[in-house]
């Protein structure tokens, strides 16, 4: 089954990309923005039918490789 993971920088970690995209959007006239944060999105097809097991595998991946827990958080979403 497919499991998705969203990796974002932790709340207080500077997000240079988000900041500059915010400025650029502002410059283009999108003035109603308070903050832009950029992250990574993964779709992982796991050979596993049990959703909780599949999610656990992806969680492990996040902890070990996909995210650096020093600066990033992750969220796991079951897609299919």
């Amino acid at each position, binding site marked *: 089954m497919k499991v998705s993971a969203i990796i974002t*920088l*932790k*709340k*207080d*970690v*500077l*997000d*240079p990309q988000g*900041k*500059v995209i915010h*400025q650029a959007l502002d410059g283009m006239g999108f003035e109603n923005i308070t903050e832009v944060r950029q992250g990574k999105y993964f779709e992982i097809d796991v050979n596993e039918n049990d959703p909780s097991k599949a999610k656990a595998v992806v969680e492990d991946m996040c902890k070990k490789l996909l995210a*650096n827990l*020093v*600066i990033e958080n992750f969220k796991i979403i079951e897609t299919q």
Partner: protein
Amino acid sequence: MEVNEQIAIDHGLKSDEYKKICQLLKRTPNITELGIFSAMWNEHCSYKSSRLHLKKLPTKGKKVIQGPGENAGVIDIEDGDAIVFKIESHNHPSFIEPYQGAATGVGGIMRDVFTMGARPIANLNSIHFGSPQHKKTKNLLRGVVHGIGGYGNCMGVPTIAGQTSFDSSYNGNILVNAMTLGLVKKNKIFYSKAAGLNKPVIYVGSKTGRDGIHGASMASASFDEKIEEKKPTVQVGDPFTEKLLLEACLELMAGDSIIAIQDMGAAGLTSSSIEMASKGNLGIEIDLNKVPCRETKMTPYEIMLSESQERMLIVLENGKEEIAKKIFDKWNLDFAVIGKTTNSKNIELFFNQEQVAKIPVNILVENSPMYDRKWKKSKLPKKNKIKNEVLNKFKIKDVLKKILSNQNICSKEWIWQQYDHTVMGDTIQKPGGDSGVVRVHGTNKAVAASVDSSAVYCWAHPLTGGKQVVAESWRNLISVGAKPIAITNCLNFGSPEKEDNMGEFVECVQGIGEASKYLNFPVVSGNVSFYNQTKEVGIKPTPSIGGVGLIKDYKKMISMDLKEVDNLVLIIGKTEGHIDQSLFARTILDEKNGPPPEVNLFNEKNNGESILNLIDKGYVKSAHDISLGGLLVAISKMCIKGNKGIKISKPKSLINEIEYFFAEDQGRYLIEINKEDLKEVTKILDKNSVHHEEFGIISKNDMIINEKTKLTIDELKSYYTNWLTKYMS
């Protein structure tokens, strides 16, 4: 929150230090004040364990405009030009988050340089990793290289040279030392000394977040239960903002608005404001509500201790605020007047109209602790007696193959190809040579720089090792035809609280001091990184030396690639056959004991100066210093780079073949000259009592040793170039 001794200890202060604070203040500090003390009095800012010994380093010279104590050192390169340079460590953060750790290290050192008004013109780095077999090494290496490249490339500053080593002593503590050179006009150098009363103090650059509020401040847990979310200890670098900050600062510096400027590096706003006040013998008043913050509800404590990157503090001339603001607005950077200079000689902080801290500046700086730590002297190890029978077992070809492909010798092209080394259009010697060389834009001059360290020698005998690193830096500059001017040092050691490690530090510094004094190669900047230690095991002592030299006419620059068939290659300096601590002994014989090669400073100076003389007269076609790996490794690199072969014959009267080819005796170079010049060159060398001998004749294709061993250039290349690429793929 009530401050007590335990909280002070949790901030990394010692019990005595806390008592001293209370005594000096004549009261108990509040939490913000305690944070300020802990930041100013920690090892990183106060140099409390090292100061006593660093004082002994030679820091003055005819060419020195600014020695240690400013953001970076400054040297005179004539015609009104000066070079600003410094090396700094970012070891601990790089181990936790290699990309960001290395990136912010590079960003920090560039900021130190442009704070002084200089445009960065070259970056270098010295990076050290654990054993290649260690499970973390590969990822750390990749992350660090990407981080260095990510930041330096984006800034548009070429990375022109570096050094990479692998040793199991770095398994738990990698080293990332970054060095930057900047170019400035002598009369436009900016310093951090504040002057004048009621001058506006302005804050520019990025906003302040909770980045890198130091580990010890975990003690302030009661600020918020969600401490994990709140305390990232690794800063994230933003090279784009730094590029804007660079351009904006240089634009402002072109005018006459700035009195003093200081970048916010370690301990951020705390150390920058205190440093400026202290140097100017003034007080400073800051309204923390005016500091641009990225997060909501930041406390005075957090604002003062944040290590958010890409920020600067400036003391302006009165009435120049609008001019400055306009420039920072243009570059889309934060700008805020946050305070003023005062005559109170105190640092006074206000938050929500209340005074939240008031500390006499001199207490923080002059009264900061200084320790004479206990240290143990190292004995010079006994020489190993290696029998000729043992050495004769080895075939030269096999040994050379192994050594050329050793991780500490082999080509590091996989690394430096990821660094933009040609941007700015002045790089005339790329990485992979003895030194990187960049032209001084628009002139005939060029500046050479190299970064070196020899942890193995320092570990075997710190005093000798310390001298050796300086000598090697000197040789690397000479080899490209540059006159060495000054050095910067990054002293990476274990815990100063352990006698062995402290001894290594003291004696390495002594060695560095002796060599730099003798060679008239003063130390103008640097930093100390202690506690590179995992549990009880410290790293091998690793002082990194960044050397800078001047080439007056860049067309006279020398490179190591062999130039012409039938030219002669000479060895300058005597080959005694010192095998202990050589790469041969350590990797082929597996012999880890014994003394490092002796460093004879008279010979170093004499040989180096004589080579510069030969270069100046136009006799030298290519040159390379003989260091790690010995003679055959040195000539192999010259062959590979020049795509030429060589016929070598070992003088019969001398020592054993293996010793001759793989010894690491110091003070030696290989130089290529034209046959016709031999007589004249010999005359000059003899006159100066420089030991020299003929080594070989350049040929078209193969390396032929004593008429019996033959290696093609392609073979040499494949040994030399493949290891790292294979390892990383």
